[in-house]
Structures are given as structure tokens and as C-alpha cells.
């Protein structure tokens, strides 16, 4: 409507009207934006801010800087080739004494222990044995006597590496990488190199569940899309009811069904198929069954809506032109379902990557996914840096896939697949 006015507004007498319309439109736009702003402000506080804070924790390196400030300052000019000079040793002695008095030494010790295993012992032992500031010029000798580690370049490199204010340490650690004495990026020692395995495991579980959902979901979506509306609406309840049932109820139900003396094992024994109960839960099998069950509706619903849009006339045309049913299916029907397959698979994969509750309840120790370790490092061991670095990587993977998904389903109705 506005545009029609604007195009007819070429005559000079119409200029004020054109301006008035523009002004009215601008006021409308400001009003529209003002309606969205409360939610944006709210999300800034309850979502975007917290996520940004987590990302900051992944690179924030404040502990050593705060507890050993003199040492950090003294090491700033250290080139790392030889042992640092006397000045740095004296600074460290002063810092350690001050930190011990303030009770903050454990904070730095914890951070340095992440970089070099056993650093905690070095630092606390030094603090215990250092009674008073060393005589001027003897700090290097005194500290070396207390713990020979102070004669090792690597000890000092660890402090310098942890001097902050920002660090790539946690992000590197999350990729099983570390910096060596000379600052080069190398593979982490094998006892700390567990995260690539966890990534691989997370992606393996996510991918397997996606494939299982696709295999199980395809015929169901096809049936629902092909049946007359009345019958298909009735059968849709079998998809929507589980979809709406609490995740915890479903997980709990699977444990009841699959446990050693559960319904499945009892039935199989009753039928004489097995003699002893099989282990069906608290292992990878249980994770696959429960996760596939939870995520299957997220596959069926997008598949269904893409199949619903395919006109049966295409298949009839293919048949009338002499295509055997299988050929018609593979060359005419299947290609048209590809957007639905892609959308459903991406959605299931994205959701599966972030799963926590289900694997935590039905998986064993070797079935825990990324989320489990993020939670573990946050609440149990309070290694916030590593938790945040792992979180940042998981977030990056998720957002990347979500962008692809967004491009894919642009304009498509996706509400049905949005319930988490």
C-alpha cells in the first residue's frame, strides 16, 4: 500500500504527503522495534550474557596473575631461553610469602597444576619451607635448594604461560594440544589427551542415533503421509504422545523395560530365546535405544511434512511412463523427500550432540558425551576454564549445524520440530 503511494508521489505537490508517509512508516518501525526490545534485553541478561560469560571463562587466565603479581611482572621480559634472573626468583619468593599469608596460594597452585602435573606440590612445598624472604641475591639458590624444580626451565615456562590475562590453554587442552617449554603447540601427554576421544564418541553416538531415527522414521512418515487424513491423524497420536511425554518418564521407562530382571529380559527368557539375562542397559545399547526413542519424533515430523507436499501425480506419471515401482520410488519420490531427510537428520543430530540426561542415566562410564564432561568440570572438579572450553567447542559445532539447518528449512514450517 505504502509503495503504491510512493510511486504515484512523483508530482512536486505530493512531496509533503510522501514525507508524511515516510515519517509515519518510520514511527511504525520504531514502535515495532520497541515491542521486540524487552525480549532482547531479557535474553541479554538470561541467555546471551551467560553464554558470552562462558566463552570468556574459556580464555580467561586470572589466577596466577592475581596471586603471583610480582612474578608475572618479572617474567614479562623473560625470553624463556635460559633460567630467569635473580629478580624473578626474589619476586616469586615475595609472592609466595604474601599468598601464603593471604591464603590464596591454592588458587594459583590449582591453575598451575593443570599446566604441569605436580605443580601444586612444588608450590605448597616451597611455601612451607620458605620461612622468610631470602637475603638479597640468594633467592635463586634458596629456592633451588627447597625444590630442584625451580632449576628447571619448564617450571618457569608454566608460570609464564599461565600469566594471562587471556590464554589459549583450555581451548588447546580441549583439543588434546598443549604448549611445550618453547611455546610451540604439541600433542598433550597421553594421560591428559582424552578429549578427542570424547568428541569422536559424541559424534559417533549422534550420528548413529540419527541414522537409526532415519531408518525407523522413514516408513512411518511415508505411511502417515500416504494414508487418508482420518486414519493418519489417529496414528499421529502414536508419534505425538511420546513426543509430549517427559524425557525423564521415557528414560525411566526404558530402564524398567531393559534392566536385568526387566520386562524385555523376562520375556526373552520366557520365550526360550536366551538362558541368562542380557545386559541391555547402562551400556551403549541402552543409550542408542533410549536416545533413538526420544529423538525419533523429531525425524518423523519434518519427514512427514516434506512427504505430505509430494503430489501423488508424479508417481502415477512415472508409472504411466513405464517406470517399475522401485525405479519410480528411487528416481521420483526419494529425491523429493531429500529436503525433509536433510532437515530431520540435521535436527536430530544437533539435538543428539548436546544430550546429557539420557546418557547420564542409561549409559556407562564409556558412553558419556561432551555435555557430561562439561557438567563434571563445572560442578565436581570446578575446572571452569576447561568446562567452558569444551562448551565453546560444542557450541561452535551446534551453531554451525544450526545455521545449515536454518538455510535448509527457510520458509518451511518448523514449529513441529522445535520442542526440546
Amino acid at each position: 500500500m505504502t509503495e503504491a503511494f510512493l510511486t504515484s508521489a512523483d508530482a512536486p505537490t505530493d512531496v509533503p504527503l510522501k514525507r508524511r508517509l515516510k515519517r509515519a512508516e518510520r514511527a511504525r518501525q520504531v514502535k515495532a522495534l520497541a515491542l521486540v526490545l524487552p525480549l532482547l534485553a531479557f535474553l541479554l541478561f538470561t541467555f546471551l550474557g551467560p553464554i558470552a560469560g562462558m566463552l570468556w571463562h574459556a580464555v580467561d587466565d586470572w589466577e596466577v596473575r592475581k596471586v603471583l603479581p610480582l612474578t608475572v611482572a618479572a617474567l614479562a621480559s623473560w625470553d624463556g631461553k635460559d633460567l630467569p634472573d635473580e629478580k624473578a626468583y626474589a619476586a616469586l619468593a615475595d609472592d609466595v610469602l604474601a599468598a601464603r599469608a593471604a591464603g590464596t596460594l591454592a588458587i594459583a597452585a590449582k591453575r598451575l597444576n593443570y599446566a604441569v602435573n605436580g605443580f601444586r606440590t612444588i608450590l605448597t612445598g616451597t611455601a612451607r619451607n620458605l620461612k622468610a624472604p631470602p637475603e638479597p641475591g640468594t633467592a635463586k639458590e634458596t629456592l633451588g635448594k627447597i625444590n630442584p624444580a625451580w632449576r628447571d626451565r619448564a617450571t618457569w615456562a608454566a608460570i609464564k604461560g599461565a600469566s594471562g590475562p587471556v590464554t589459549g590453554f583450555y581451548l588447546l587442552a580441549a583439543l588434546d594440544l598443549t604448549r611445550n617449554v618453547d611455546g610451540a603447540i604439541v600433542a598433550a601427554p597421553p594421560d591428559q589427551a582424552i578429549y578427542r576421544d570424547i568428541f569422536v564418541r559424541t559424534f559417533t553416538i549422534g550420528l548413529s542415533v540419527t541414522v537409526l531415527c532415519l531408518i525407523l522414521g522413514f516408513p512411518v512418515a511415508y505411511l502417515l503421509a500416504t494414508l487418508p487424513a482420518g486414519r493418519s491423524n489417529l496414528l499421529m497420536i502414536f508419534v505425538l504422545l511420546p513426543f509430549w511425554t517427559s524425557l525423564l518418564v521415557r528414560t525411566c521407562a526404558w530402564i524398567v523395560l531393559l534392566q536385568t530382571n526387566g520386562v524385555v529380559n523376562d520375556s526373552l527368557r520366557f520365550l526360550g530365546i536366551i538362558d541368562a539375562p542380557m545386559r541391555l542397559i547402562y551400556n551403549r545399547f541402552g543409550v542408542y535405544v533410549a536416545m533413538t526413542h526420544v529423538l525419533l519424533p523429531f525425524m518423523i515430523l519434518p519427514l512427514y511434512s516434506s512427504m505430505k507436499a509430494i503430489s501423488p501425480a508424479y508417481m502415477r506419471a512415472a508409472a504411466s511412463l513405464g517406470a517399475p515401482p522401485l525405479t519410480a520410488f528411487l528416481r521420483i519420490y526419494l529425491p523429493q523427500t531429500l529436503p525433509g531427510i536433510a532437515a530431520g537428520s540435521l535436527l536430530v543430530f544437533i539435538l543428539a550432540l548436546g544430550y546429557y540426561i539420557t546418557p547420564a542415566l542409561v549409559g556407562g562410564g564409556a558412553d558419556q558425551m561432551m555435555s557430561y564432561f562439561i557438567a563434571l568440570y563445572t560442578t565436581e572438579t570446578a575446572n571452569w576454564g576447561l568446562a567452558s572450553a569444551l562448551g565453546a567447542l560444542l557450541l561452535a559445532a551446534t551453531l554451525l549445524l544450526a545455521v545449515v539447518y536454518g538455510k535448509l528449512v527457510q520458509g518451511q514450517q518448523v514449529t513441529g520440530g522445535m520442542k526440546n
Partner: protein
Amino acid sequence: MSGDASLRTTSQRIAWRATIVLSTLVFIFLMAPILAIMPLSFSSGSYLTYPLPGFSLRWYDEFIHSARWMASVKNSMIIGVASTVLSVVLGTLAALGLAQWKSRFKPLVLAIVLSPVVVPGVITAVGLYFFFAPIGLTGSYLGLILAHTALATPFVVITVGATLQSFDMNLARAAASLGAPSLYAFRRVILPLILPGLASGALFAFATSFDEVVIVLFMAGPEQRTLPREMFSGIRENISPTITAAAVILTTVSVILLATMEGLRRRNERLKGNSA
């Protein structure tokens, strides 16, 4: 291709039968756990096995008379209702604004508004834990309500937005041209028409909060433990029949929500059919 009536060749018929058989198996897979857990909650014995030794309501009795479970139901209701109200207000305003706002930043804003749905729960929970702990919002109702509102609002934006797509903005213009102040026009013209979308958005929001457990795990103190949180620790320790009773109650709530939602959808479709 509707049903098997139009299927002519043998191979087509076989393929159709296979589809039906496979689908039936998948339907059984989908429904079995929900159906299997229900009778166990009415068992008179304390083992979760079939056949049931007898029928009894003792586990429901135990659930209702347990202070811990009842407190969790109360917490779930408080947090669920409060975050539903908050997310309906914020989400409806945003949906109304987004429907009229024209800008190249709109896709970005939309992505931000919808992102709480996509971001893994643990990441949101960890971020909130770091962010809310220093300002005293962990272990508080307010903190959980705010967090659940953030998770639930996208659903309100989506459902209300979908309703607005079929809403004729000329109606609002007509109201304005007849001299209605915009708040009055909203209350008397827009609100009644988008009410079905708003209601299903509210149901979505409530269901999201009522089922959420990851954030509660990180942020709730002992005072704010919700029903799913109580179930989580129950499943961890040892699944007792009381938990199956809780599961049946939760499922019943879901069925009621689903039925209401379906009713709203049908009503909406009928209205659309009448006006067309």
C-alpha cells in the same frame, strides 16, 4: 496412492505391506515404554516386574503423602506458571513487533530470539551458573523462573508469529481509522484473534518448563527441586514404584496438554474454514 486400493502390481502391494509392518513395529517401539510403565505404578508389590502380584494404589498414596514429592510438584507449578506468564508477555510483544518490523537485521534478531532452543541445555546451564551465582540468583525461584522463561519464550514467538501470519493487519488499521487507541485496538481486535496461538504458545511454554531438568540440576537449591529434578535423583538411586507413579502423573499432564493443544488446533482450523 491413498491406501492400498489403488495399488495394482504385486511388488507395490508387498512394499505397502512392508511399510505397514515396519511402521507398526516402530509404533510399538514408540508406545511400549509408556504403556509398560503405567500398570507397574498400580502394583501391590514393590518389584518392577510382570506379572503384577496385585492391584493397589499404595504408591500413589505414598506419592501424595510424601512431603518431598509434594514440594517438588508445588515448585514445578510455581516455576512453570510464572515462567509461562512471563514468556507469554515477552514473546507476544516480540511476535507483534517482528511481524511489523522491516529491517535487514530481522533474520539476526529472529536467530537470537530462537537460539535458546538450539543451544545444548548444558551450555545454557553452565553459562547461567557462572552468571547467576555471583549475583545470588542460583538457588532461588527467581533465577529458575528467569532461566525457564528464556527457554520457553521462543515457542511463544513461533506460535503467536504463526497466528499473526494469517492475521489481516488491515483489521488493526480499520480499528485505528475508526479512532481506537492502539491499546484498545489490541485488546478488542488483535488479542481475541491471536488468542488460539497465544494459548498454544502458553501450553508449549508450560510444558517446556515442566519438563526441564538440566538447568534445574545446576541452579536449584534444595528448596527449588522440581518434579523432574526429583525424578532424576530417584532414577539415579533406585527406581521405586513411587517413581513410576510420578511418571504416570507426569504423563497424564502431558496428555492433557496435548489434548488441549489438539483441540485448539482443530478449533482454529474450523474458524479458518468458516471465514474462507
